[in-house]
């Protein structure tokens, strides 16, 4: 006889409530728990999403929506992400989580969000949290770099943030055509152009590792202490509960002590090759 067992290794059933087309190869899924209750989460945490019969991948939570749902932004890069990105409304997916650490909950400081490409997805719930309680923070800056104007995630929401007078939003692209009137260049270059008090700031950085290395360099140069810089690290996540060993980054299990890590705690690992 087989009996259902509640364990961190067994997925819970969720239904696709809505599919938002973000980019030609990227969608945001609104996932509604079949149980009717979504577990609590902290911005920055991730879930393991299972496409029936195909496999499971780690995806950061990119927000919450109606019906106690999770939002997940998925780009078609492999078999599982492609299967997930092509699900229709009503389809079921397995969800394990939320797992890992979240972005720090700070107050009374300047907050600098530095996002590269899809790295905006894990930061979005943290940005929403800060903007919802705007009065509790000093200056707030959102610095976002992406490949090309046509590959800009959350375009409408970015525009909405940009229209607020209490947030400094800077967007830059690596490559542009003549129709683009915004910045061209890399996101770390925006850091030097942004006004904030480095000793009273918290920087939250997410993007490809190379971009994060340059961003950390620019933040340090601007005077931000290492212990005020937070990064979201990516490693191969399989079990998400510290039992399979895949996501090790030196002595850290990214699924347990990450993905969000304070830079001073990983500074020595960050510059070690193939660690």
């Amino acid at each position, binding site marked *: *006889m*087989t*009996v*259902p*067992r509640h*364990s*961190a*290794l*067994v*997925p819970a*059933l969720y*239904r696709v409530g809505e599919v938002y087309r973000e980019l030609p190869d990227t969608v945001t899924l609104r996932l509604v728990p*079949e149980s009717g209750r979504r577990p609590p989460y902290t911005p920055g945490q991730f879930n393991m999403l*299972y496409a*029936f*019969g*195909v*496999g*499971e991948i780690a995806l950061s939570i990119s927000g919450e929506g109606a019906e106690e749902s999770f939002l997940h932004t998925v780009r078609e*890069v*492999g078999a599982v992400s492609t299967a997930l990105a092509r699900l229709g409304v*009503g*389809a*079921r997916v*397995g969800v394990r989580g939320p797992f890992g650490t979240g972005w720090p909950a700070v107050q009374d400081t300047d907050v600098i969000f530095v996002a590269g490409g899809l790295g905006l997805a894990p930061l979005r719930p943290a940005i929403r949290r800060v903007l919802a309680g705007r009065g509790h923070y000093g200056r707030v800056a959102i610095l976002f770099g992406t490949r090309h104007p046509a590959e800009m995630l959350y375009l409408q929401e970015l525009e909405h943030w940009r229209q607020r007078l209490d947030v400094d939003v800077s967007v830059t692209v690596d490559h542009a055509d003549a129709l683009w009137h915004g910045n061209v260049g890399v996101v770390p270059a925006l850091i030097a152009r942004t006004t904030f008090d480095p000793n009273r700031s918290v920087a939250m950085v997410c993007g490809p590792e190379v971009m994060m290395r340059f961003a950390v360099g620019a933040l340090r140069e601007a005077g931000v202490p290492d212990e005020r810089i937070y990064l979201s690290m*990516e*490693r*191969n996540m*399989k*079990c998400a*509960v*510290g*039992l*399979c*060993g*895949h996501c*090790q980054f*030196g*002595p850290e*299990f990214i699924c*347990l002590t990450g993905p969000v890590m304070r830079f001073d705690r990983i500074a*020595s690992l960050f510059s*070690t*090759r*193939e*660690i």
Partner: protein
Amino acid sequence: MPVGAKAMIVREALQGLFDALVTEGYRTLGPTLREGAIVYDDVRHVSELPAGWTDSQEAGRYQLRRREDAAWFGFNVGPHSWKRFLHPPLELLWSARRSGDSFEITVPAAEAKLALIGVRACELHAIAIQDRVFCAGRYRDDSYQARRTDTFIVAVNCGQAGGTCFCVSMGSGPKAAAGFDLSLTELLGADRATFLVEVGSEAGARMLERIASRPPTEAELAGAQAALERTAARMGRKLDTTHLRELLREQAGHPRWDEAGERCLSCGNCTMVCPTCFCTSVEDHSSLDGAAAGRVRLWDSCFTLDFSYVHGGSVRHSTGARYRHWLAHKLSYWIDQFGTSGCVGCGRCITWCPVGIDITEEAAALRTPGRAKRKEVTHEEP
């Protein structure tokens, strides 16, 4: 009999213990001869034990030999460890059945409880280490926990040291000190063979009461002690563990890693034979008609490229980096993660490495500062 009590049984009485365990519903596992090695498998009768056999081990070499006596446990450790049963190489985590747009998930039921017979001191430590990995963290592995809760352990003290053994360096042997229900020391007298039995738990005491025993003599106790001391003095290898945790972290750039990487075949043997290596992967399957799916968990090795794969490629793409990760994890990161070294000094990784890479030798080499590797330059004399 209280925990810590000692008794003597005649060797043949061990069959009584096997029988009692089977009666209690245990699946009895022990050493047996198969495919040119001493492995662990189902053993129900003492006649299946490798009587009169021993193993000779060196870096990259394992050979069975006939003993001059008929000892039942007169060998060290083979390619198997008990993790094969407590943390199986392949395990179904759950299966799912599709119904319309949805699917239903079920998990397999628990299996028979296990009795491990012939567990060495190093292996007791390895089991304790895996207990920490799977049961003491924020998340617990339910199926491992279920298997461990009901495990009955009969330890065996080592009467000899193997060529690649270094349990004394790791503080894990040769005497079975804790973590067993009963422990045995095999005493080969001139007239008859006996076991000195030590009670390690109340469950062990209850089992011992079901077979005939008598109190040991002073001479027998002294004989068992002498045998252990002899074993401890004859370790085939040694490893200096002073500041090993810090050393491995500081020496991430040591050229020795590249040198080991040049010899290492990335075969993953060391991780498979290691009694503490716990890394796994999962595979998702589905039936051809798409109606059923399942997830199995398999032993994995940090020596594969896939292990550290992230979108775009593998983090540890060179063999040297993968070897460094394995050794640093075992001897250093493990301490950060689980409060204990990941090595118990059993020597399996040395014996079963096809090119004979020796963990004790590699760790020692890191103590000699090496010059950072440069591109080879041919110096031309003017």
